[in-house]
């Protein structure tokens, strides 16, 4: 018999040759056999699981506060587990907010006693287990694909409802989420789901994204356990980034929502930025399928602008590869939307003060100036306008290198004329007009460098 809680414990009785298990709650026998057995297994699993941070923490708490009063209650294995608590668990316990500790068994008991989750009475453990089986069946592609598909959708709906609450139930208690996430980590199901996203049906894909986003946001104090988990399994991120590949266009948008959620966390954004997969985005944002390209672009933009210091560091270290090799191609893209969006993003990146070193480098290269001057006279007025916002940085630079200065001087009068007639109808945009006047003044006053 293992002691778990003041009121709940599981008894194992040997009845003849058959092993019977019962779950005892407040001195009443609630369940024999299967259900009690499952909760017992679940508890054992929790104790043995090597990554179960928070639940183990609470169990440890329980075990420590009570062992003296119930010394005979704990089996030797359980005691060993207790004595082997690594220091990390104590840290977890400290970081966890003070609240009623709920044990794994209590959760299971609650789930089994009351049909909390609508029709389904499955506990998180069972749900995760049967979803995993369904996914494996889908992956192996047996003849029972349809059955697997159906099981898969059913379990995904149950898990989603468990996390979000269905339309007539409240969102769930923390411990249900805790146990569910724990199971998801231990079973490696997140990766499995993402790898098989294209095999899951339309609604299922959306549910995967919803489940993922909810679990990702999970917090214990200042820690985000799911983020920590994904850091140890970066394949999840790489697989998600591969979701934009042409092979399965139907999963692109679902992968996109999950990726943007991940990009909110600096640790995950760092892994993504520094991966080889990141440079594939230059291809993804350029496809002519509008929805996929614009989704990919918003992810791309999120990665490059969300965490300023991280991005500045990244752009600085990868300047040549990023700007000369790849970004240049976006600016010359056939795709109008891509060209315009990337030009706008370029302006934002250069004008961000975190990216100062990158900007200085960019505006000292004459090739870039030429490109912007050509874009100033593009057909599209919006591209002209965005190009203006990059072009102004070249002119406003107080220490123009010689090649830049030469180009500007060579075109001095043309530029003054051009800018004077440039977008004259934007009379209500004060900032634009001020900047334009400033640029004209600067260009007029340009003087060649004194001969050294």
């Amino acid at each position: 018999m293992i002691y778990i809680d003041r009121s709940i414990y599981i008894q194992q009785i040997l009845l003849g040759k058959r092993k019977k298990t019962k779950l005892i709650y407040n001195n009443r026998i609630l369940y024999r056999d299967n259900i009690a057995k499952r909760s017992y297994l679940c508890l054992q699993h929790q104790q043995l699981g090597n990554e179960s941070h928070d639940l183990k923490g609470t169990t440890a708490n329980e075990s420590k506060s009570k062992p003296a009063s119930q010394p005979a209650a704990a089996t030797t294995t359980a005691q060993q587990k207790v004595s082997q608590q690594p220091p990390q668990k104590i840290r977890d316990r400290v970081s966890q907010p003070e609240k009623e500790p709920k044990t794994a068994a209590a959760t299971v008991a609650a789930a089994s006693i009351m049909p909390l989750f609508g029709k389904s009475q499955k506990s998180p453990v069972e749900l995760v287990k049967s979803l995993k089986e369904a996914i494996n069946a889908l992956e192996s592609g047996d003849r029972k694909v349809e059955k697997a598909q159906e099981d898969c959708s059913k379990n995904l709906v149950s898990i989603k409802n468990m996390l979000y609450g269905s339309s007539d139930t409240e969102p769930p208690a923390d411990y249900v989420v805790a146990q569910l996430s724990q199971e998801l980590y231990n079973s490696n199901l997140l990766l499995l789901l993402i790898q098989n996203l294209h095999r899951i049906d339309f609604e299922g894909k959306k549910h995967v994204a919803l489940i993922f986003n909810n679990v990702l946001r999970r917090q214990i104090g200042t820690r985000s356990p799911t983020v920590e988990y994904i850091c140890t399994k970066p394949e999840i991120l790489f697989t998600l980034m591969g979701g934009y590949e042409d092979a399965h266009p139907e999963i692109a948008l679902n992968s996109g929502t999950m990726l943007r959620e991940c990009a909110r966390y600096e640790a995950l954004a760092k892994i993504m930025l520094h991966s080889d997969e990141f440079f594939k985005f230059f291809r993804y944002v350029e496809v002519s399928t509008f929805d996929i390209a614009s989704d990919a672009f918003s992810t791309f933009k999120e990665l490059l602008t969300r965490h300023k210091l991280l991005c500045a560091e990244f752009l600085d270290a990868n300047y040549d590869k990023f700007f000369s090799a790849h970004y240049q191609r976006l600016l010359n893209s056939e795709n109008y939307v891509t060209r315009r969006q990337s030009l706008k993003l370029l302006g934002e990146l250069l004008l961000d003060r975190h990216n100062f070193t990158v900007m200085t480098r960019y505006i000292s290269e004459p090739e870039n100036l030429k490109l912007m001057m050509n874009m100033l006279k593009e057909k599209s007025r919006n591209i002209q306008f965005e190009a203006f916002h990059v072009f102004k940085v070249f002119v406003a630079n107080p220490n123009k290198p010689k090649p830049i200065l030469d180009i500007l001087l060579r075109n001095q009068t043309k530029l003054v004329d051009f800018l004077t007639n440039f977008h004259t109808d934007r009379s209500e945009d004060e900032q634009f007009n001020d900047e334009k006047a400033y640029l004209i003044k600067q260009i007029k006053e340009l003087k060649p460098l004194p001969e050294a």
Partner: protein
Amino acid sequence: MFSNNISDYKLNSTIKAGTFGTVYKANYLNSNKCVVIKQISVEQQADKVTRICEDVLKCRQFKHTNINSLLHCFVDKNYVYMVFPFVCFGNCQTLLENVFTSGFPEILIALIFKDIMSALVYIHSHHFIHGSLRAKSILLDRNKAILSNFRDSRSFINQGKRDQVLYGSTVGKAENLNWTAPEILYQNLSGYTEKSDLYSIGITSYEMANGFQPFLDSELTFMCTEKIRGNLPSLSDKSSQGLSSVNYSREAVPSAMNNQRTFSDDFHQYMEICLNKNPTCRWSAHKLMTHSFFKQCRNSSILDQLKGLNFDLQSCTYIKDEPLRAASANVKHLEDVKWCF
């Protein structure tokens, strides 16, 4: 799968040419499938382009037989093309203006709303609100009604959590205000839920039965106070003949026909349930599906009814077969300026 090249589509006729974009009836040459193509210029301000992206992503959220699906979407030159399936009778507002000028027959309304309700159950079960239900958002195909226009739809799911109520203003939705539920008009702290869609359903039923929208010519404040007081617009039939209540209409519907017909008690009751000013008392879409108003749908279908009315594709001539005007690119050419590098 559809191709990303506009030359693979044969544009037949213009269905609508608005400020937002042009809608064409077209054939996809590779499969000879009849589709509707919406052509939107992206040579617009940045925030409008963002809005287009959002709209497209919203269209991609749903897959249901009674929801208009976006088949494909691609960029070609300065335009975004959105490909939708062709729905033969177009939207119900156009039908009301051109064919059913004094309203749809009751049985057709029941059939249409049965389809719309099943779409609504689907949307609500995914924690979304449609937000702009009106006859214009309902398309009628040969054998089913289709819900479209998800531009104003909103989700309860926000940052990985589900909100219980939504808050929001009605700014920029002026054209839909007549259909808007009172709890949205309040804009107070208790917010609104998916029940607000049911109120819009009620107003839309009224619109479909009488042939015009309520509060058409009234002041916004009048419309608002009437809704808040719970003064319901009523169906105009025999029972409303004696009543001298305000009819919220442009010419008080003098047509003798309107006063001779009778709408069933079920229909009247159904309208009252939808237009309940207290959202908690309003039925959910799921429950409303079981209302006895929809009983009459049992032995009938939209196809049968339309046949019975001698209403077929040929009589639907309001889709003008105008010659296509060439997409004009009136952009000033600045290529004459030559930089010397």
